[in-house]
């Protein structure tokens, strides 16, 4: 027999006989509940969502890409109870940057959920790691550890100085190599609840 959510099940309190005694008074302690009501008693599992996004390289500061062309571009995300894990990879073949005179721009990738730390410090940044190549400092690769509003950016480790310093990748680093800028990485953070 198929069981429907609206079907009723008799529930008998402890010390009440399971046998139907015939009268309402005698049957006190015997209730009928629906299958749905029993299901509702079971705690819900973790909220899970996964899907795709298209990583887009943007520039922080007074400027932007006038044009940009990608040869590789993929992004995947999963969310478990508001913990977002994002993986991405892009490879760029060419770009044109327009900017204000003297402006220094920082490239970053927009994430599929807003990264809330800058706006709401109570939402913690958990982890970020990335890789880049063909910037001007090719021997000091690093990346992805800097996360600002809505995106993840990169830095490189200067070979000079003691201790060596982390400095951001800027538009001038991008311009050093006219072709093939590749970044990939993973970011984990707490999603800002709407």
């Amino acid at each position, binding site marked *: 027999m198929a069981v429907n959510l609206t079907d009723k099940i008799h529930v008998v309190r402890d010390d009440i006989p399971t046998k139907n005694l015939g009268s309402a008074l005698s049957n006190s302690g015997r209730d009928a509940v629906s299958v749905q009501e029993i299901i509702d008693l079971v705690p819900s599992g973790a909220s899970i969502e996964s899907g795709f996004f*298209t990583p887009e390289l943007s520039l922080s500061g007074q400027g932007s890409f006038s044009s940009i062309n990608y040869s590789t571009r993929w992004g995947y*995300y999963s969310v478990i109870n508001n913990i977002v894990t994002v993986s991405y990879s892009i490879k760029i073949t060419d770009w044109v940057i327009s900017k204000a005179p003297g402006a220094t721009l920082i490239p970053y990738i927009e994430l*599929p959920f807003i990264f809330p730390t800058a*706006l709401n410090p109570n939402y913690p940044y958990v982890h970020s790691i990335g890789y880049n190549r063909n910037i001007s400092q090719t021997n000091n690769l690093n990346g992805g550890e800097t996360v*600002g509003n*809505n995106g993840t950016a990169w830095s490189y480790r200067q070979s000079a100085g003691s*201790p060596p*310093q982390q400095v951001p990748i800027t538009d001038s680093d991008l311009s050093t190599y006219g072709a093939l800028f590749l970044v990939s990485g993973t970011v984990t953070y707490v999603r800002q609840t*709407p």
Partner: protein
Amino acid sequence: MAKTIKVNVLKDSYNILEVLEVENGKNFRYVVTPDKDIDSLEGIVADIAKELWTEELKEAYGVFLEAEHERLMKQFETPEETNE
């Protein structure tokens, strides 16, 4: 199967829109911020942006972006070493 679109408005964060598109069982997400050109948006996302993104809000978001850029630049700064 028709595409369904769900938009979350982050009211405490400059009315930034978090968009979920579902088509053929696949989820696709993106974020739309008030510095985006509304004319480049489509459908319900454009309608919501037109309603919520006032000129004052766009201006305030621009100021925030400038501050955020400065924060990013300073995040890497290491205090200069001295002999003291």
